[in-house]
């Protein structure tokens, strides 16, 4: 994983509606980046649904949330709609996993992102990272712990 204290790598990726979203769009804001293995898997669905249920409070705490996986934008759209997600899912589809890799969140032998959370501060510096085993979902409480530090 990227080291705490490092500048977050810049990126620009299409979201579920094929709109480009870049790190610079969140300049001046705290950003939670959620890397996850893949759309339409039960664990990832549980995870993102859980985060959607507290999205309002994440934003009240002064942060934005985005998800990133190697799935295509079209796949993201279907997945997002199936869960009613109100935060962007970014597609690291081509070149596959490049942004995930730049954050140290890519598992090359499996061809997808790991399951991790990264907090980027308003100045673009990574202040917190959390990587969990692929089948374990990081609780929403961990996000709020990080945001309260």
């Amino acid at each position, binding site marked *: 994983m990227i080291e705490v204290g490092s500048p977050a790598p810049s990126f620009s990726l299409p979201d579920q509606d094929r709109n480009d979203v870049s790190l610079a769009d969140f300049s001046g804001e705290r950003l939670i980046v959620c890397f996850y293995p893949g759309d339409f898997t039960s664990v990832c*669905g*549980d*995870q*993102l*649904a*859980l985060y*959607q*249920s*507290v999205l309002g*409070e*994440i934003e*009240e*705490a002064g942060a934005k949330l985005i998800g990133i996986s190697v799935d295509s934008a079209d796949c993201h759209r279907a997945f997002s709609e199936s*869960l*009613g*997600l109100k935060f962007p899912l970014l597609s690291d589809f081509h070149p596959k996993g490049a942004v995930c890799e730049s954050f140290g969140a890519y598992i090359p032998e499996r061809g997808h992102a790991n399951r991790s959370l990264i907090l980027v501060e308003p100045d673009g510096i990574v202040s917190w990272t959390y990587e969990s085993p692929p089948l*374990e*979902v*990081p*609780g*929403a*409480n*961990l996000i*709020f*712990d990080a*945001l*309260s530090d």
Partner: protein
Amino acid sequence: MSDLGSARPPEPGAGDHVLGEGPSVIVYLDVCCPRCAAAWPFLSEVPASLCVRHFPVEPLHPRAPVLHRTLEAAARQGAFRPMLSRLLLDRGRTDDPHIWRAAEEMGLDVDRLRVDREQAEVVERVDTDFRSGLRAGVVETPAGFHEGVRLEGDLEEALRGIVGDGGAPGGV
């Protein structure tokens, strides 16, 4: 700042729904969750003091919040356990007409049930449980806790370890 940071689940208290007798276990359930439905025949018979808490995950199960409020409203008429069983074991019939019929068959006052499930206290009660689960790190249901510690792995196996081998045949 939000109050959703990490915290152990509150010990069972006066407002909780506690079923059975034995070692104290807290379990967070979503009545629309198939894993909870599959676990219920065991959970309903496990020889434990089972504190059941609401954990409706709306993005996964859009109808879960109202069904949990209905369950809480049924509890006001002393029917927490039968309503919980009904919701978990007949998940294909949880639209309102089905629920009102089931409530009638349980001998509940349906008009009161309809009113109660919209009461602010009921909404808050369900939300309080959900938030305590979030703070305890619940990410999927069913999620069990014993002595404040999350039960990892297979819940049924973990509970058998707590209550001993003599516990819990299947049944409802």
